[in-house]
């Protein structure tokens, strides 16, 4: 089925198998990195190929030599047998997605990110039909203080990509995780707790990495009509580097 299984690779190349397909990898790569390089899709949310893996959402869970592990942080071994697209694993991924949906407030029809949202697209990909669990309906006020950007924390999945982008790329530390357990939440770097009082700008990398609809540019709402957005045209599994594409 995959063109990769027949891709010639040099004999010294180390490989593992992903759902039966041979995937080459090099020292230091994690399973998902090698899989992506080979054009294979493993569902993921907190992983973004441009950043150091975080390993928190667990959507990228696979079975590697019989043991379940997060493929964004696990490095493959030679001839490792990795299974990803199995009923059991996809069932578990769906349950994790449902957990992410019910712990926040996700009203997709009214969300500016709808169609460009990785959470939504991954839920479609994995045939998630209902939230299954009871909603937690947390109370998370918006931050509209900034001139250009709005923060809608209701949709935050705590992937920390914004925090990683801000510290590793922008050198700013605008975003951090705070609290613990189910009360974990995102904060910004100002005494008032408001985005307007930070040094955040629209040119920051952090402004463009949110996989869901938390960090939203103001006054361009619905510039790309629903139906014409990244994941409206192709499912997420067929869209390369969705975050980057979605942001530009």
């Amino acid at each position, binding site marked *: 089925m995959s063109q990769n299984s027949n891709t010639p690779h040099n004999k010294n190349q180390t490989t593992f198998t992903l759902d039966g397909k041979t995937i080459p990898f090099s020292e230091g790569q994690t399973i998902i990195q090698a899989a992506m390089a080979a054009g294979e899709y493993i569902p993921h949310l907190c992983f973004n190929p441009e950043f150091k893996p975080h390993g928190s959402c667990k959507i990228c869970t696979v079975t590697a030599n019989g043991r379940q592990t997060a493929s964004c942080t696990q490095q493959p071994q030679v001839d490792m047998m990795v299974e990803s697209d199995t009923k059991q694993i996809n069932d578990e991924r769906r349950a994790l997605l449902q*957990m992410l949906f019910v712990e926040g407030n996700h009203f997709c029809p009214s969300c500016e990110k709808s169609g460009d949202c990785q959470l939504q697209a991954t839920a479609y990909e994995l045939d998630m039909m209902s939230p299954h669990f009871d909603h937690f309906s947390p109370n998370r006020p918006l931050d509209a203080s900034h001139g250009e950007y709005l923060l809608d924390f209701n949709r935050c999945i705590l992937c920390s990509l914004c925090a990683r982008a801000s510290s590793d790329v922008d050198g700013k530390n605008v975003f951090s995780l705070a609290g613990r*357990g189910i009360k974990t939440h995102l904060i910004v770097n100002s005494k008032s707790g408001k985005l307007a009082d930070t040094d955040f700008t629209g040119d920051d990398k952090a402004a463009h990495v949110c996989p869901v609809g938390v960090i939203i540019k103001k006054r361009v709402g619905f510039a790309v009509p629903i139906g014409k957005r990244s994941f409206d045209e192709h499912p997420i599994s067929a869209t390369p580097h969705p975050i980057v594409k979605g942001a530009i």
Partner: protein
Amino acid sequence: MSQITTHAEYLDPILAHYKLNQHNLLQMLREAQEHFGYIHPEAIDYLEQQLQLPRSMVEGVASFYSLLYLQPHGEYRVLFSDNITDRMLGNMDLMESMCGQLWVEAGKVSEDGLVSINTTSCTGMCDQGPAVLINNIAINHLTQDRINSLCELIRERVPLSGWPLEFFAIEDNIHKKDILLDSNFKFGSALAEVLQRSSEEILQEIKTSKLRGRGGAGFSTGSKWEFCRTAPGAQHYVVCNADEGEPGTFKDRVLLNSYADMVFEGMTICAHVIGAKKGFIYLRGEYRYLLDHLHAILQRRRQQSLLGNNILGYTDFNFDIEIHLGAGAYICGEESALIESLEGKRGTPRNRPPFPVTSGYLNQPTVVNNVETFAAASLIGLHGGAWYANIGTETSSGTKILSVSGDCAHPGLYEYPFGVTVAQVLADCGAKNTQAVQISGPSGICIAANEFERRIAFDDLPTAGAFMVFDQSRDMFEVARNFVHFFKHESCGFCTPCRVGTSLLSNMMNKLANGHGSPYDFAEIEKLNELLLSTSHCGLGHSACNPVLDTIAKFRPAYDKRLTHKEYIPAFDLDYALSQARQMTGRDDTGAHLERIHVSK
């Protein structure tokens, strides 16, 4: 500006003591809090400026630990230990009485800012509960009389230093001693023995002893030390895990109180083997009262040349120990989270591999061992590995100290060679009509009467030490519910399955408790367990469903009596949802309730 200078007054000495090192952030925050009882926003301004750290990071760290506050929390901050053993001793009634006497609602600060009252996870005093922490200082053996006196002292604003000393008494309660607790250990004796021999030989003794870690996982101590010793790194570190957060465990508290030399000496032997110059004790914040005592012993050991440079005259053997205090986070007992916390960060478990033995504190090779493991290492240093290996069983050499609590005549510490049966322990501690024993705390296993011939050993009932006894009068459903609540409270929140799953599980248990459960919920709990087992990031998530699964399997009637429905019922309870409105309006008449269809309590 003037505010800043006043904050500088108390913060400067703290900053100087910790050398403006951001890895000491948690220590600095903890000490900064001692000034106002919370971390003042302007204190954060000052720390941010002096340490050159982003404010969001400082707040991110502070908000992770439940004993640190970013808002005023009262002059007196009262936290009731809420382990199931405290509950069995009536802590909830005492808390209600205290709230009533001091006019404050649990979980809130009184309007005059005098006092806040809340619950906290087990404070490690199960043998002498109900227990409370007031301004992070432990007070045990609560009775109604004692509560009345505490209320009086608080109302009159008497500083803690002026409270009757007997309130702060903490007992060791050692009921059965074996090689470790009965060793009459002389400080320096093991080290004098060990330093005459090469580090290779000592490592071999540890391996020969077959010592396995006492913190729960039971990893071979010899192998751990060897991995660390051979791992490349500019520095090697020894870390003693004294976080002891597992509900029902309190043996490390006693070891540090009365056997600290054995622990420090074990760490020093480890330093000799792995080539470390520096060690840390990570002491749980709830054991703050031990800090001065431990500092005094460390100081004495330095004077005795048992720590510091050229230990016992051996040139080039330099090693010292620093104490770091935690601030209320069970997850910091997990070794990689502990290391994050030692580095002054949020206590989130790391991705592994690499493991601490190759990349631990400051990414250098690090040994993390439990308090009891180090104490045992001292004994091995003194008497040799072969002697130690002869005690206990084939898979489990040596002795194990159990922290016994719950329904028994003599709660406290019991030391046995491995292989002792549960029945023997129950007989020794004076337990009658025992229904169940929770071995190794909520993350361990719950066993029923037909299993009491099982043995304490790594290949039968492995344990970090907790041994909670429940007699026939106890409701095992409520035991499990208490444990589930614990996991929810202590989940670090890093990974999806545990962050959300522990809340879901807690909601399901509440739903069952409210009489809205159906057999459908059991299947849901099974599914949740599988998900947490296979996808959680660390051991907390892996074991979070254990208490429920064990009690469903073994004490099914406790669940069945709550099942009033055969069909699935949604958890949403409209009447319950209105309770907030009732509270705000002060109404509780029938008109303020929806018709009750379900039994609810």
